[in-house]
């Protein structure tokens, strides 16, 4: 959300009223703005101390979709209308005395398609700037460049002293070596090629060079005497630069999409048209497109749409007439009238300054804001439904409770970790098929999504050296595996893991934790050669480089057979026995951690670890919601 700094005294003057900080905060809150800061006290303190001080500022946070509120002109205009001190202005195109035929023209070359295809412009006549309104004009362009323009990538603006130029104008695209002009605030002409090198070291402009650098042609705007206006989106020319004394302003806007192009040219033109001798008038320009067709720019006409009072009422819980809704909308700068053919319907004019309105629901929200969110009737949805926890949450809670009752402490490490922690530190090799990897981490700590809970547990032990031994910690949480069969190419799995750290390694301790969890889940312990048992779990010695040789085991689970209700013959029984073994699934492992693993995590005491997946133990609930993807 952008924060806008406005001059407090100027704002009070524009609003025709002074507010206390509390009153103003309340007003902004109702409108959907936030008063971040009032620098009055700071300024007064500075003056008292004899220090240089600026005029008191109000810092106001505005919603990211309200481009019409990113300058004092827009905020004051909106609040005046909201306070019913003014009517919404009507923005008007002012043609030259001779009409359309006298319009200045801008010819678009077909070449610009290759780099920055779209162009719009507007002229403000007989403008009178003050130092503060001039600063606001510059600041508005910067705000729009950063927000909707996505750092000039999508849209950029140039403003010029029209009196230094001679129409007709041309928007072209040329090879950088063929472009040569004196850029803003320089005294020497450079080719575009040279400029790209010159601005390489410019802290401000270097950020935008990439937008056109690799293009074979650069966008460039000329007047009829081949003087450059600007090279979008990088820099304007020194020749046409505007000053405090500029009276006639030419605004150029280039963009990559039409919608944002229109929004930006309309905002700049409508906001600053209030400084024209005849406020809210904008002189258009005739744009001649490559195919020979023309369009008049800017298009500041209102968009006509409809909204129903019944819809506003149904969405808000109010009971308003169309006229009442119309009054509310007026306060949000939306002019409307009740449709002559339908008393429920309002014909609404969306001004060029409100491109944030897409749908009837946006109009409904404006009506609700004007009514006051906090004044809405107190209601409670009548929706009657049955509560239901997720099976996996219940299961996870059972393990958490039982292990905590067994004297272990639950910890909560992070889910993202470094590649090393997830693989190399555990003596594991990344086969490239297991872990999900992050493309743009800001720190090495966040390279992969963990595939095991152990790194987090071991880091927690490392950071808790001063805790008396033994350290007994556990976590039940999600790990993520690549899974190419799914839409999202990955799946979460809930694991339970525990690590014991003491002067002796204590394999039997984590083994006991496994037995306890299984006992509480009513999974019987079966022999690892028992092929007859229908269901159960067992552990079997295995080797895994994370564990000490001879002190590692894999945990197997044999889920209960699907019930089919038939009795089996001897032969079938035999087949079934074989099937049992095939049905056995590896669900995890346990062991004494290898001393090299301990060294990797800087742990000076022996540790045993246990980790297994909880997924197979999820109960089939009388479900109201499933966990199936």
């Amino acid at each position, binding site marked *: 959300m952008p924060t806008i700094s406005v001059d407090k005294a100027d704002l009070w003057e524009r609003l025709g009223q002074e507010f206390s900080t509390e009153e103003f905060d309340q007003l902004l809150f109702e409108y959907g703005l*936030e008063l971040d800061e009032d620098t009055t006290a700071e300024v007064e303190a500075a003056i008292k101390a004899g220090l240089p001080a600026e005029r008191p500022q109000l810092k106001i946070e505005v919603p990211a979709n*309200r481009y019409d509120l990113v300058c004092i002109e827009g905020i004051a205009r909106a609040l005046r209308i909201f306070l019913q001190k003014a009517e919404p202005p009507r923005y008007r195109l002012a043609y030259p005395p001779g009409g359309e035929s006298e319009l200045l023209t801008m010819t678009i070359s077909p070449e610009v398609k290759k780099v920055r295809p779209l162009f719009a412009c507007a002229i403000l006549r007989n403008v009178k700037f003050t130092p503060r309104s001039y600063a606001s004009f510059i600041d508005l362009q910067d705000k729009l460049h950063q927000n909707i323009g996505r750092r000039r990538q999508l849209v950029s603006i140039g403003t010029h002293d029209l009196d230094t130029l001679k129409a007709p104008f041309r928007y072209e695209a040329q090879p950088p070596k063929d472009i040569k002009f004196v850029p803003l605030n320089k005294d020497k002409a450079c080719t575009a090629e040279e400029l790209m090198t010159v601005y390489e070291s410019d802290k401000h402009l270097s950020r935008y060079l990439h937008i056109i650098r690799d293009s074979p042609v650069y966008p460039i705007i000329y007047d009829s005497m081949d003087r450059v206006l600007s090279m979008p989106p990088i820099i304007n020319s020194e020749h046409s630069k505007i000053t405090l004394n500029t009276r006639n302003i030419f605004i150029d806007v280039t963009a990559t999409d039409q919608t944002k192009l229109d929004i930006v040219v309309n905002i700049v033109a409508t906001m600053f048209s209030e400084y024209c001798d005849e406020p809210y008038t904008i002189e258009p320009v005739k744009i001649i497109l490559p195919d020979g067709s023309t369009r008049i720019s800017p298009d500041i006409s209102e968009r006509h749409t409809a909204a129903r009072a019944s819809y506003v009422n149904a969405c808000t819980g109010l009971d308003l007439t169309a006229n009442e809704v119309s009054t509310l909308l007026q306060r949000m700068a939306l002019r409307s009238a009740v449709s002559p053919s339908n008393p429920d319907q309002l014909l609404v004019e969306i001004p060029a300054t409100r491109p944030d309105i897409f749908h009837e629901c946006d109009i409904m929200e404006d009506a609700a804001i004007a009514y006051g969110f906090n004044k809405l009737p107190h*209601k409670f949805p009548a929706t009657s*439904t049955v509560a239901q926890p997720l099976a996996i949450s219940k299961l996870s809670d059972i393990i958490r409770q039982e292990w905590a009752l067994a004297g272990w402490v639950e910890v*909560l490490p992070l889910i993202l970790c470094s590649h090393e922690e997830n693989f190399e530190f555990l003596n594991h090799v990344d086969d490239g098929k297991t872990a999900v990897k992050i493309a743009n981490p800001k720190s090495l700590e966040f390279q992969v*999504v963990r595939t095991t809970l152990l790194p987090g547990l071991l880091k927690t032990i490392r950071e808790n050296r001063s805790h008396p031994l033994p350290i007994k910690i556990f976590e039940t949480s999600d790990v993520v595996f690549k899974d190419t069969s799914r839409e999202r190419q990955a799946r979460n799995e809930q694991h339970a893991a525990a690590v014991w750290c003491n002067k002796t390694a204590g394999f039997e301790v984590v083994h006991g934790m496994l037995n306890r969890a299984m006992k509480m889940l009513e999974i019987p312990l079966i022999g690892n050669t028992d092929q007859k048992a229908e269901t159960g779990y067992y552990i079997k010695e295995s080797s895994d480089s994370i564990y000490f040789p001879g002190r590692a085991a894999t945990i197997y689970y044999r889920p209960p057979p699907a019930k089919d209700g038939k009795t089996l013959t001897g032969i079938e029984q035999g087949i079934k026995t074989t099937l049992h073994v095939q049905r056995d699934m590896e669900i995890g492992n346990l062991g004494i951690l290898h001393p090299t693993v301990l060294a990797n995590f800087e742990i000076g005491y022996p540790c045993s670890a246990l980790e297994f997946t909880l997924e197979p133990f999820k109960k089939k609930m009388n479900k109201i919601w499933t966990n199936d993807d």
Partner: protein
Amino acid sequence: MAESLQQLILNTLDAQSTIEDTRSLMIPGQSAPAVSQEDQITILGALNSLLSREVRVDPMIIYETHDTLSHALTPEGSQIVELGSHEARVWAALPAKGEGSPLTPVQLKKQVGDETAKVGQGRAFKNGWIGKEADGFVKIVLTIQDATQVDLREIASTGTLEAGEKVLADLRKRKLIVQRKGQWFTVKKGSNFSTSTAKPETDLTVDMLTSGTWKASTFKKYNFDAEGAPTTGGALHPLLKVREEIRNIFLEMGFAEMPTSSFVESGFWCFDALFVPQQHPARDLQDTFYLSDPKEALPPEPEYYKRVSTVHEHGGFGSTGYRAPWSHEESSKLLLRTHTTASSAHMLYKLSAKCRGEKLEGDAEEFAHGSSTTGDGSDDGFRPAKLFSIDRVFRNETMDATHLAEFHQVEGVVADRNLTLADLIGFMRVFFKKMGIEKVRFKPAYNPYTEPSLEIFAFHPMLDRWVEVGNSGMFRPEMLEPMGFPKDVRVHGWGLSLERPTMIRYGINNIRTLVGHKVSIEGIENSPAVMF
């Protein structure tokens, strides 16, 4: 020894009724009265252990403490007691006048040592014991009185000096003695005096029960001011205790828990399906973790995908749409979900399956939530739902005291026909009241997927200001209608972080002390229970 000393004290008291000065006692096994400070400390130990045998408030003995100041010799002082003062040693080393050749300073140093020669020479001169002759020194008196040695001897045996403070001060200055604080005691019989040292019982035991000795035993007084024995046992993590409490609020209010077990999402489900524009800053590399492996999601259901891309690019369902170019690449990028609303969107898509005329994969009943259609009688397949989730989300943020790259989002969704903004606000008031937050107000806000959107502010009595506690809104028609929901179905959604209320609950300022591997295990063990 300790036992016999206690017995001695009791016996002496029995005989004399008072011990005026414990320095007169003769500790068993010693041959002299206990005048030294070490001995008095031993006696104090015996007195205290007799005192601690008191039963209820009746003590066996009473004692008074008297403080003394005494002096003890430094190692140098002890040497003087043994060998004489430096000056005496210098005098003794020199020949008498006329009886042999005088000792030069160098010879003297050799004979008595550097230190003694240096100090002793000057003092012996001053005392008029020695004199200069030729290039050396000689005795000039035949006998001397080594007062320093005599004084130190007296101090060694009595701890003080008859001669008084002036001399003591001088000896202290010469670092021959040091001052020591000491104590001695006057002991009297207590109200519960007895010469028996049999110990009172500290606890009731099974042996006492079987033998019946508990009836005759005396019991030591219990110290009710001390803490009880620390418990052993495990602990649950404080953040997850708060999660439990909030989950209970949802369950109490009739919400079903949504599956959220997909940290990996596509741009489509995390943003596009929610009508978040493709150029929205939240989708920047600066804010979202994108995946390098795997990179691209499989395509979603093509008809739905088409409806979503169309409403973005060209509008529809009564909306103008964003009218900005659509990128399939942006839509299929894989990322770590930035909000659980990605999962909610997927659940709403499932909830509206019947409205689209699709058959559910055999579990249609689960969508009913025990409720029947609330429409005008004709069943369009819609069933109301109340859903919640509390799970992890990821943001590519720079970490600081209040931000981690991952946190827990609490999310609630209510879908029903003709829900209103007033219902949402009323519901929020109840929900936050259940969390112990009474005073809330609602600010209009912008959120690409809800309209209206509201930020929820709560008055924080400690900070004495309003703080933002959550976000809420009604999902946009551009999100719901492409899924197939009927026009009169409106969906409330709200979210808050789990960390924020937990930090407030436990008074934590730095999130790293709550989440992650740097959290202290001891802190987890001692974090109180949560009751909103």
